[in-house]
């Protein structure tokens, strides 16, 4: 095969890679400096930097989507005081050999919490970095011994409008239900969280126990769980049943799948001024991509 050489462009005219990148870098720096000069004085609380610095405790505990306490971002911090997290039990049932009702305090004793710093990407195109305290969901699932029929895990939030005033309005089908495929649930990155920043979870963050699945959009990480059921068929989940074209069952973070409301290509890290590129699987592709090998992730979004 003859591969034609582009002789008509002399090598001196081609920008070498190093100066191409340094030129881009220069433009970005100048643009960034100009933007900071323009709006910087107005927004002194913005962090600089491109890394995964921890999001502030204040931000994590005041900016929440938890519709059980209202649909505004500040509603959960204001209204979640009515939730009583003790006594609390977690029912594990369905396709398991050892179903049971677990007391929250026993769970804390039985499954020591470790710290996991994860990115959290909301489907609304904002994100945080959160130092969770929790333990692998797999530890709990192994203890109850799933049967051979178990293929999915269904999670359910508490349903009690007296404690969760947002449930008095039908903005979502209550109780909130989420689900994972069993292999996703057993993945070592998937944790049940009981705290963050070294403290017990506040109610607005899903106390006393919640799911954290860092490579999926935030709404998959269901809060204030009262029941875990292992099932044979894919469970009907809350947002998916409300708007199936917008919120798929999988809802893996995927910059390539368009959403009718938000571009998923970029995200605003809370506390930073500029948007940053959203990463496939929220940057956890090395660990989780093999769960979906052979699957069309644009169809199974």
């Amino acid at each position, binding site marked *: 095969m003859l591969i034609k050489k582009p002789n008509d462009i002399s090598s001196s005219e081609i920008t070498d890679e190093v100066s191409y990148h340094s030129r881009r870098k220069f433009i970005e720096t100048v643009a960034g400096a100009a933007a900071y000069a323009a*709006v910087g004085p107005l927004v002194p609380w913005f962090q600089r930097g491109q890394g995964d610095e921890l999001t502030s405790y204040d*931000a994590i505990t005041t900016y929440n989507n938890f519709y059980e306490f209202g649909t505004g971002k500040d509603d959960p911090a204001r209204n979640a005081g009515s939730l009583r997290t003790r006594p609390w039990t977690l029912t594990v049932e369905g396709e398991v050999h050892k179903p049971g009702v677990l007391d929250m305090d026993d769970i804390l004793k039985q499954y020591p919490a470790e710290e996991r710093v994860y990115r959290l990407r909301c489907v609304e195109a*904002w994100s945080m970095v959160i130092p969770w305290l929790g333990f692998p969901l797999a530890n709990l699932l192994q203890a109850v011994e799933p049967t051979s029929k178990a293929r999915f895990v269904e999670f359910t939030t508490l349903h009690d409008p007296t404690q969760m005033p947002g449930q008095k309005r039908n903005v979502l089908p209550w109780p909130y239900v989420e689900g994972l495929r069993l292999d996703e649930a057993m993945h070592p990155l998937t944790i049940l969280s009981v705290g963050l920043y070294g403290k017990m979870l506040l109610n607005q963050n899903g106390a006393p126990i919640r799911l954290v699945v860092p490579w999926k959009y935030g709404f998959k990480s269901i809060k204030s769980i009262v029941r875990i059921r292992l099932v044979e068929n894919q469970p009907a989940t809350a947002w998916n049943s409300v708007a199936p074209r917008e919120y798929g069952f999988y809802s893996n973070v995927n910059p390539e799948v368009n959403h*009718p409301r938000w*571009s998923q290509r970029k995200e*605003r890290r809370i506390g930073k001024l500029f948007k940053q590129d959203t990463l496939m699987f929220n940057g956890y592709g090395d660990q989780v991509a093999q769960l979906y090998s052979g699957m069309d992730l644009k169809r199974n979004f």
Partner: protein
Amino acid sequence: MNRAQLVRWVAKPVVFVTLLLPAVILAWDSVAGNLSVNPIEDITHRTGRWGLILLLVTLAVTPVRRITGWSVLIRFRRMVGLFAFFYLLLHFSTYVVLDQFFSLRGIADDVLNRPYITVGFASLVLLVPLAVTSTKGMVKRLGGRRWANLHRLVYVAAGGGIVHFVWLVKADYRDPTIYGIVLVLLLASRLKLPRWRSVPT
């Protein structure tokens, strides 16, 4: 001081300052750090909401005047309309500068692929000729009837604003529904009464 002077030197400045207050409060909250931890979202929502509210207020002038007989209200309508445009321009600028940081690719992607942005953008564009032709000179140049016909575009723009609001919320439709009902009532009040009511008895 006669009535006309009172309107010009007292009432209008008072209304002007009042309509500027939301912007002043927003500016204060931005500087003082009273916004949420996602301040850009906060600014976008607040400016958009005030734009829509004031658009509805301009549409309320005619029916309220008809019911109360306070013809003086018409003297304030242009100011309210221009303030609506001002807040919606702030809303749009917040999006272009703070949210997208002039990324033409990001903006084009949104305008083409997010229906709520398409509608919101189109509605703002519709308001531009209305703001431009709001001066006395332009009213004269266009002629009353043509000017009035042109300014009926505000009905379309307000409708577009409501659709923009409905399409952007995820699940809680309470607020856009309230605004939508207000708009429907304001538009319905403009329907000509059936002929049999206007026949003298």
